């Protein structure tokens, strides 16, 4: 695996890093991340609260304490990443997840404990700590990037900065982003367009935002490229990153408004959240598809062609997707009946009865099941990965379905606002349950009818290798991040 900042790597994905202890490297990276977080805390006036850990209230003492903690937490990250793939893109998503996890552990749990207060686990306290959440995410991102750079410097520092991404990939990323941005802009009103998410308007800016997001995705895309489904999920985490670092951080900073990390500012800028999630995930899928299309059209080496072709495996996958979609749909049906949501679904076909709603719902489930099969076939190496892909895919369909397509098809506008998020929270839970059942059922069917990963000679070893590659990449981090974001963001801004 290589990425934007990669240098020569062996086939297992491990580059030629320096021989320093991973904890030390992590501590240095943590100090870099802590500096960024510290600057933000200084801007927000939050350093005295950190100083209270040592019974002081001076910002400088707070900064010193903060940097010490950052070094320790960074060392933990370095140790955690010691056996992971060393490229920047994978490390970045781990950093995001790590930062998010430390928000729950640090300011909500340990900080109150160390200052003699009860844990701040209630919703009001979490809402007060929203700026800290974004600070932790910033810390995670910067620490991850610093660690990725540190692990590649030392023996060949100059080469370390040579981008491994090619011009072709950057062009593909730009094209993918442009396609995704145009698609979304055609679907939503101007005030929700990708340009508006980053503080602009008009088709030109929409295209520019799309290209920017797409090129960024190309930088963060692993080698060899992912299939459509994993790229879609990676894109959703990437979209969240854009919302935090773009909409809430860079755009207000550049416009001189300061960090928009407060609860009120977050609520105000929430409409950009679904848009950026959809933009980045769609760009991810386009990026993957364009790459495969380019290979199919321009590669004259049959060894690079897809195994049996899409016809054989694709058709089998569709059959399994139908069944898995129905299984997921049945799980969701229980929730829909409980909350009385079926009549709303029935309105899609101009009806109003629960039975009509049930039929429509199951048909939609079937279609989503088929799409899951085509996007994620052959990507579930065990039940854990099946659950990860399924649940994250379910979240995406909450954004695309409940918040976007359903209101559009019912004659309204996409409901990318806090009120709608609160109203559709039960639907979010249903989509997560749907995705989980979908992923697990699909994996079960795939395993039972065709253990595709087992070759004649070294079947179990091949399966173990693929599972390990998945664990060493950033997929588990992306799953955790997406589900964390899916559940906590709506509740905190509600």
């Amino acid at each position: 695996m290589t990425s934007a900042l990669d240098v020569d790597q062996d086939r297992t994905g491990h580059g030629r890093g320096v021989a320093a202890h991973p904890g030390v490297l992590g501590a240095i990276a943590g100090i870099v991340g802590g500096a960024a977080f510290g600057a933000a805390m200084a801007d927000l006036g939050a350093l005295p609260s950190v100083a209270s850990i040592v019974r002081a209230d001076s910002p400088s003492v707070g900064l010193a304490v903060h940097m010490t903690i950052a070094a320790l937490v960074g060392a933990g990250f370095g140790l955690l990443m010691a056996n992971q793939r060393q490229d920047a893109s994978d490390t970045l998503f781990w950093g995001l997840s790590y930062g998010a996890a430390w928000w729950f552990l640090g300011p909500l749990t340990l900080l109150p404990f160390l200052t003699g207060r009860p844990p701040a686990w209630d919703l009001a306290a979490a809402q007060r700590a929203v700026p800290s959440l974004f600070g932790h995410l910033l810390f995670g991102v910067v620490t991850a990037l610093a660690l990725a750079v540190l692990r590649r410097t030392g023996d060949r520092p100059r080469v370390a900065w040579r981008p491994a991404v090619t011009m072709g990939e950057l062009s593909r990323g730009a094209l993918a982003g442009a396609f995704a941005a145009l698609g979304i802009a055609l679907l939503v009103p101007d005030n929700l367009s990708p340009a508006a998410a980053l503080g602009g308007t008009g088709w030109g800016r929409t295209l520019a935002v799309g290209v920017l997001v797409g090129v960024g995705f190309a930088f963060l895309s692993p080698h060899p490229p992912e299939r459509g489904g994993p790229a879609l999920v990676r894109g959703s985490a990437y979209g969240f990153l854009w919302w935090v670092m773009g909409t809430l951080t860079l755009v207000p900073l550049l416009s001189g408004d300061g960090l928009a990390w407060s609860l009120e500012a977050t609520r105000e800028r929430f409409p950009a959240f679904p848009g950026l999630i959809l933009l980045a995930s769609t760009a991810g899928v386009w990026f993957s598809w364009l790459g495969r299309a380019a290979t199919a059209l321009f590669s004259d080496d049959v060894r690079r062609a897809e195994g049996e072709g899409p016809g054989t495996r694709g058709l089998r996958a569709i059959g399994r997707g139908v069944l898995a979609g129905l299984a997921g749909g049945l799980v969701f049906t229980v929730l829909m009946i409980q909350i009385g949501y079926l009549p709303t679904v029935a309105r899609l076909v101009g009806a109003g009865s629960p039975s009509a709603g049930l039929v429509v719902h199951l048909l939609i489930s079937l279609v989503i099941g088929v799409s899951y099969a085509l996007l994620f076939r052959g990507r579930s190496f065990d039940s854990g990965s099946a659950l990860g892909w399924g649940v994250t895919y379910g979240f995406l369909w909450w954004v695309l379905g409940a918040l976007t397509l359903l209101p559009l098809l019912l004659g309204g506008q996409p409901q990318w606002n806090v009120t709608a998020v609160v109203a559709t929270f039960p639907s979010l839970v249903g989509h997560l349950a749907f995705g989980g059942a979908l992923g697990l059922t699909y994996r079960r069917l795939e395993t039972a009818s065709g253990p595709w990963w087992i070759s004649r000679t070294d079947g179990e070893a091949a399966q173990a290798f693929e599972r390990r590659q998945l664990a060493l990449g950033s997929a588990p981090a992306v799953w955790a991040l997406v589900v964390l974001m899916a559940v906590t963001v709506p509740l905190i801004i509600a």
Partner: protein
Amino acid sequence: MSVATGDPGRQRATRGEFAIAGAVAGFLAGAAVVVVLVRQGMVDTMAAGPGPDVVGVLVLLVGATVTGAACGWVTQPEALPAAVSGGLLFGLLGWICWWLTALPLVLGVSPTWSATQAGEVFPYLIGSILHGGATGVLLYLLVDRLPRKVPVPPPSEGVPPRVLVIGGGFAGVAVARRLERLSARGLRVDVTLVSESNYLLFTPMLAEVASSAIQATHIASPVRASCPLTRFRRGTVDAIDLERRVVQVSASHTGETDHLEYDQLVIALGSEPNYLGLAGVAEHSFSLKSLSDATRLRNHTLTLLDRAEGECDADERRRLLTFVVAGGGFAGVEMAAELFDFVHGVRRYYPVIGPDDPRFVLVHPRDRILPELSTELAAYAQRRLEARGIEFLLGRRVAGAGAGFVILDGQEVVGTETLVWTAGTQPNAALAALAVDKNRAGALKVDATLAVPGVAGLWAAGDCAEVPDLDRDGAPHPPTAQHALREGKALADNIAAVLRGEEPSPFRFRAIGTLVALGRRTAAAEIRGHRFSGLLAWLMWRAIYLGKLPGIEKKVRVLLDWGIEEAFPRDTVVTASAEVGPVEPSAVLS
């Protein structure tokens, strides 16, 4: 951190070990979270309201333990970061399952999953997330550090039982495919399949290949693609040594012999034409058992049309265009109908050949055709074909054949260049030397479990086996494709049962029905006692057999062939010569 990270020197933990470690990790992490919650006085709320604190604590600890066990069972983490991520994921899902769903139900309140309800239990969301993360860390450390209770399996367990399947027809491939499925579910078995051809031929559509309606390779599925986990050997079975458990095989391409050892042997060699010792028939007839048979007949028919087109003598032209089919079973009737459609369908390109020049004769020794069908349907089939001009010589037999003629019983000589032989089959000749109980035709007698009595580890299925039908007092199952398929699956299940030390089950199958195609837009069918004929039966025939055709790719190709046939004429390209050498009638008659 060597085990869970996949150190090849140490054995990976089993799924059960992951679950146990997860339960312990979940309990320990849960205890830490519970301590925090108790200190905050939040255990009343979560313990179903009015209950005492101790109940709440117990409920929480049980929930934490179950969540941890599920996390270990499902995620089986390979690395510490993945373990933490998996734990976080399960913490979140556990919060949804317990706090948003199960707890309201326990309290007698309908769950609404609303943001308001979720906000009320938000503290437990944070607790669940932290619990999940801590569980992931502990799970990984426990699996990594604790001693293995399950020892590394001894080398003898590393060699799976060897199952050798000889024959790549419906039964043989069904056995291999079923064993692959069972292998995916944990059965340790090493399967090898030996077949003369490298494909599974879908024989019900063979007549359509001979009549140029379907491309030859479209009804054949490559065994290597159909059975990707099975070792495949292309070759001919020369000898079977039941005592030493060795099968001698000659490679198809080199002729080199090899000896394959087995623990379980499945004989599914199918059948081959039986010419009943009739003079000249084997040499001067076309059988219909393989792709090459069908393509040879197709090329031969087209060559005859070319010859007839250039023939000035009307009698000779009629002789050239006389097609004799021996046998009035499914294969014979379908072949006669298809030949009729083929010849008349392309006749427009041969302007010299008149509509009355081609002659089609079906010879059958009994008084009615299609004995597998009811009398009424058989009569219907005969009427429809006779109406088109196909002659039926019932109660007659082919007595011999030579180049340019067929001799019927009673010494009648029919001038023809084409005799299609479907009047008899016999089990594969390789079984002749096998010292086991056989029926009169030479098929292996097996018991209801498809095992050959008296020989441990020997099984048989398909056309080469006589399988007793327990629902018909032990009368043999008919040698049809649908029976062979089911027998193959049942046989694989029984092998798996034996390998697991269980009792094999008797094979039971009631035929779904029978269908016979009668050429263009016509067929006859009996499905579960219901009779169908004409266009409806023809559509049923196509739908059912298309569904039975192995492989999606082949289904699509045949469907396209059928679609193309509706829009364009059949292909008349001759791909190879298929002439039969000259023999004088006197040589045969003498």
